[in-house]
């Protein structure tokens, strides 16, 4: 992130030899107040960049060092969209009388070309006769040349699992993370990586959460920070089930939506002042996520069937982690869309677990819709445990599932398959997140249209805020 340096300033006022011209107002050209550059090449080639050290008279040994910082410059200026301004003939104002202490305190600002013109002139006049200050000025100018762009290289999100797997291959964990918690861990880490470099404005970016409430699509407006708060307070249900502190306190509502509304209503983290401190939202969410993973690692196998209450229903802890992983992906997708950033689907092993959870929840969801008159009646009244009409669900890169259509108690049967739905990863995401009307899901479909319709609607109805 070197900044543009137009390298101009070849005109020296006769009355102030070796004094660099004053820096123009901060917003305009950002020229270095360096007077020893040649004029920029007429062909428009990039001018030399980099800090120039102050020069004192009669010290030729410094000439050598002058080359050095330039080797560390990066031609990144163009990407910042700032162009050097045309050269302006400098007219330094008279230098004010400043004490040595004040002049010394100005050296950092001077090296960064962040002094007003009259102080720039005063510092430069001082450097001509104060060796210690001139030495420091030289050193600080060189240091300016080391201010690069942080390479905001996005880490390959899949690198995390490769690195962790490599480590665990070298030394197996004595306290492993259960697979189902690993899915959540990976998704939270991916979202965290997306949040890491976001600016304040992006934290305030509006996000519309959308889901399918069983009958129609609904939505709720919030911000990026609001989405993270939502994830945190719903993850908080798991935390409370494991005996960790509930972020909403002991009397918090059990229903995810009610919890979220309570947090959005009362959460001090979402006030305008707090928006300037995104860490106030991100850190607690992340810390709680780490605590969840750590806690279940120690909890032993028995914990995986621990029921986690979500108000109207409950899920075993194991499924609940996978469900939270899916929600994390859904909302990471919402955020990415809001700030116009790409976001990939999860690793296929993790996606498979998510689809598998949904496939296991579908027979009950179908039965519920049937009871509510929202799905067609069973075609056949089978005996529990006997094979019945079946829908074949395929999700790209994840696998195949066979869903019993007539009753949750019926056995799925390949031989009795009456319909088939094929979804790619994106279509699965859009459907299961409730982002598209179920009948419009981009699904390949063959067979009984009513069975297909019922399963698409049941899948979408599993979505939540």
């Amino acid at each position: 992130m070197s900044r543009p340096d137009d390298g101009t300033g070849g005109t020296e006022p006769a009355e102030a030899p070796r004094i660099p011209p004053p820096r123009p107002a901060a917003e305009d050209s950002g020229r270095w107040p360096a007077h020893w550059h040649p004029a920029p090449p007429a062909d428009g080639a990039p001018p030399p960049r980099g800090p120039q050290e102050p020069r004192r008279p009669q010290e030729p040994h410094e000439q050598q060092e002058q080359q050095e910082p330039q080797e560390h410059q990066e031609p990144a200026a163009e990407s910042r969209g700032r162009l050097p301004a045309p050269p302006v003939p400098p007219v330094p104002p008279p230098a004010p009388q400043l004490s040595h202490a004040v002049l010394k305190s100005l050296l950092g600002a001077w090296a960064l070309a962040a002094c007003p013109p009259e102080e720039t002139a005063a510092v430069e006049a001082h450097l001509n006769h104060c060796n210690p200050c001139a030495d420091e000025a030289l050193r600080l100018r060189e240091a300016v040349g080391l201010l690069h762009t942080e390479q905001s290289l996005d880490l390959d999100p899949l690198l995390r699992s490769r690195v962790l797997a490599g480590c665990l291959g070298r030394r197996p964990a004595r306290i492993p993370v259960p697979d189902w918690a690993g899915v959540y861990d990976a998704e939270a880490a991916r979202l965290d990586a997306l949040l890491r470099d976001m600016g304040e404005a992006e934290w305030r970016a509006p996000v519309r959460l959308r889901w399918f409430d069983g009958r129609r699509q609904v939505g709720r407006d919030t911000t990026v920070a609001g989405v993270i708060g939502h994830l945190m307070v719903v993850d908080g249900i798991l935390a409370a089930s494991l005996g960790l502190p509930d972020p909403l306190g002991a009397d918090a509502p059990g229903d995810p939506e009610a919890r979220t509304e309570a947090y959005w209503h009362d959460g001090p983290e979402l006030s305008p002042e707090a928006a300037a401190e995104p860490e106030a939202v991100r850190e607690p969410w992340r810390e709680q996520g780490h605590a969840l993973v750590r806690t279940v690692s120690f909890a032993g196998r028995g914990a995986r069937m621990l029921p986690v209450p979500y108000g109207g229903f409950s899920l075993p802890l194991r499924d609940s982690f996978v469900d939270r992983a899916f929600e994390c992906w859904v909302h990471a997708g919402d955020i990415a869309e809001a700030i116009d950033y790409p976001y990939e689907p999860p690793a296929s092993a993790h996606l498979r677990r998510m689809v598998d959870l949904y496939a296991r929840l579908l027979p009950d969801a179908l039965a519920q819709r049937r009871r509510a008159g929202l799905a067609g009646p069973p075609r056949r009244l089978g005996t529990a445990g006997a094979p019945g009409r079946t829908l074949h669900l395929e999700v790209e890169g994840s696998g195949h599932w066979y869903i019993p259509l007539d009753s949750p108690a019926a056995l799925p049967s390949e031989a009795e398959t009456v319909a088939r739905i094929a979804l790619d990863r994106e279509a699965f995401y859009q459907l299961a997140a409730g982002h598209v009307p179920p009948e419009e899901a981009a699904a390949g479909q063959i067979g009984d249209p009513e069975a297909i319709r019922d399963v698409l609607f049941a899948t979408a109805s599993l979505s939540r805020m």
Partner: protein
Amino acid sequence: MANDAPPRWDRRMQQRLARGEAAALGELYDRFASLVHNLAHRVLEDEEAADRVTREVFGYAWENPGAYDPQQGSLRSWIATLAHRQAVHRLREAEARAAADPAGDGTAGEGAVAARGRRTAEDIEERIREASVAARADYIVTSMPAPLRAALELAYFDRRDYRQTAAELGVTEDEARRRLRLGLQLLSTARAPLPEAGPPPGYGRAL
């Protein structure tokens, strides 16, 4: 950023790693992966090579958590030192391979580095020095106290003068001047010459 994690976090992390807690390894990665990867990338200028150094550094830390001595500095500085050493080691290796295979027929795997072909030993050392200084500078900038960093960013990247910087940060002009000067003084330590032994300068505990 969690740059100023307390030493307690460091010690606790070390104990958890020593105990073989996979969850701790994940947390370690989440906190330091971009530090390691950026540092390695600054030295090696190659994505794949930086991925590899990242795997090696976390592998080492996971297998040898006892090698970290909290008396010597923060866990962050230890990880940065490991990353720096490993990246330089890989760079030397790649340069040696390139020197042995000047045709660059693709047998050497470190991409950008190997492709540059034969160089003299001095060239290589010079390049390692440059890469080291740049990598340390990155580390110093990302590790310095947030107020100093914020002041530098305003003055340098946003082109505020120190008075505007002071106003934006809500501090006195004296304080803004102090922060800019101190920030650059810290940064200038990236140029200290590399000692023969011990951690490279710039990853010290002062940060």
